[in-house]
């Protein structure tokens, strides 16, 4: 019976119910979108790293495992790596940040293509001239670029010579030598991708290299890919914590205002229930159930809206951001929202439960 009353109360004020649910849902969406972007971008980064086709990578001393890195490694290391007998191919990569999380990569086109199994060009083709740039299809879509378009970055214009299917380490690639020159870092690279004659020897090769290059982080690709996790990004974890706190506060405020208004609006009805013999617990139970139902509807709205944010990201900024749908966060985000909602209803519910029956019945 109480559930029927709760349901009818929610149905009686459909706009209030809808707006409250959407507002509660926004908190859920905030959490799911943030976690989804974090996971999505790491997953995308991992997929693109896989697309290189290497067995191991040698990075500059002191570089972060999942960071972009910079042109800080001496290119002569490349000669040492190529000299190892199990190495069939080693190609240097230069990374230059172009702001935020965007970067441009310098490659030796033919080597890189050989290692990764070749680019699949949607349009155009390989790097041929010093001012050529190749971009992936997502970047082309986001920036509305075609073959022959000019791309302005690093204070100069580049001609788009090819648009390739995404999944090859970077979204924007230029010749490595040009990148080194522009960054005033001739002879410097960021990392070396290495292909072995037999992937089964990867660990043995790493162990041998580490003997000679003790300061250089050397990872098997699978090991590196496993490092693409939120747990290895303390800043992201801290930011998720901030957003979770905001979502709790958001849920608290929305429910507080919605239920406080509802209690004022239903003063007389609460008086009727009390006249019929309803105790404080009964009244409290009605408002708590109503809040839980609002939080559940809000969470469902929030989950649905997180598909909306994913669509927006995929449609308008597919190269800058990727949002994954992280199912494991559905119950987490819903429970966090519920906690905020229950905190929010406590004061209005206690106020209602303590209302004097006679005063409430006289309320117009």
């Amino acid at each position, binding site marked *: 019976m109480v559930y029927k*009353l709760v349901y009818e*109360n929610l149905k009686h004020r459909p706009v209030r119910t809808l707006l409250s649910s959407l507002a509660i849902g926004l908190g859920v969406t905030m959490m799911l979108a943030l976690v989804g972007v974090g996971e999505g971008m790491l997953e995308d980064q991992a997929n693109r790293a896989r697309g290189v086709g290497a067995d191991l990578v040698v990075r500059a001393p002191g570089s972060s495992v999942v960071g972009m890195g910079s042109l800080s490694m001496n290119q002569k290391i490349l000669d040492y790596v190529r000299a190892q007998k199990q190495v069939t191919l080693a190609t240097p990569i230069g990374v230059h940040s172009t702001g935020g999380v965007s970067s441009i990569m310098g490659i030796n086109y033919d080597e890189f293509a050989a290692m990764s199994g070749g680019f699949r060009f949607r349009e155009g083709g390989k790097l041929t001239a010093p001012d050529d740039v190749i971009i992936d299809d997502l970047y082309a879509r986001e920036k509305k670029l075609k073959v022959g378009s000019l791309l302005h970055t690093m204070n100069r214009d580049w001609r788009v010579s090819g648009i390739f299917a995404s999944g090859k380490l970077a979204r924007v690639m230029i010749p490595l030598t040009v990148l080194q020159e522009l960054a005033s870092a001739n002879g410097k690279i960021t990392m070396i991708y290495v292909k072995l004659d037999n992937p089964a020897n990867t660990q043995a090769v790493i162990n041998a290299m580490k003997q000679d290059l003790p300061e250089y982080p050397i990872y098997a690709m699978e090991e590196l890919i496993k490092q693409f996790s939120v747990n290895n990004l303390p800043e992201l974890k801290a930011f998720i914590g901030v957003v979770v706190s905001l979502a709790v506060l958001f849920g608290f405020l929305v429910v507080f205002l919605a239920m406080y208004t509802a209690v004022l609006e239903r003063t007389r*009805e609460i008086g009727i229930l009390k006249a019929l013999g309803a105790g404080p617990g009964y009244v409290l139970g009605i408002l708590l159930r109503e809040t839980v139902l609002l939080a559940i509807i809000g969470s469902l709205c929030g989950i649905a809206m997180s598909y909306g944010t994913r669509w927006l990201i995929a449609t308008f900024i597919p190269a800058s951001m990727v949002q994954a749908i992280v199912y494991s966060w559905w119950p987490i985000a819903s429970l966090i929202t519920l906690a905020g909602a229950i905190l929010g209803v406590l004061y209005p519910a206690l106020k209602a439960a303590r209302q004097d*029956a006679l005063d409430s*019945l006289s309320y117009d």
Partner: protein
Amino acid sequence: MAIIEIDNLRKTFRSGDVDVHALRGVNLVVQKGEFLAVVGRSGSGKSTLFHILGGLTPPTSGTIKIDGQSLTSLDEAGRTRLRRNSVGFVFQKYNLLPTLTVRDNIDIARDIAGRSEPWDATFLEVLELLGIAQKLDRKPRQLSGGEQQRVAIARAIVNQPAILLADEPTGNLDTENSNMVLDLLRHLNKKTGQTVLMITHDPEAAAFADRTVQMRDGELHSA
């Protein structure tokens, strides 16, 4: 057998810096199955008596017993139990829950009393008598004032309370509907033996009762 026993009941309100003596030593005995009307002008104290009998407010002093149970020493929880189990209310403004159907308005009173069994045959007959048996799925806004008051009567008696308290039950109704509601109250009283205590300022309404007492300046007098 007395179902209501009131002895020297007093109620004093504080209004600003002034004490308002709403009840000044009321004495009253109501027998089980009696239909009693309490008449009086506005401000005579009859509503205060109604509120104390219904456990909506405590008395200042005196003794009051309903069905052998003393109300004098009851705390808020005790008065809540009294409203749940021993008293049924019919208000002037009907006081139905607007979001619920007729059926649910009646059922919520049963739910509050912790009863879940289906309505018995006697109660179904009462619904027929009240003329609302065919309107159980309607919301209050789909009913006339007279019909809403009849639903309120059904809700008040669904838990078989010791007393039915009606506060100006015809105050918002026209003559035809007033007579219908009063007839029904009298019929229920005669058919089921339900004790009814009705507060009214209308002598014509009071005429439907077995006995009438007059409330004047916080004191009761035989009419």
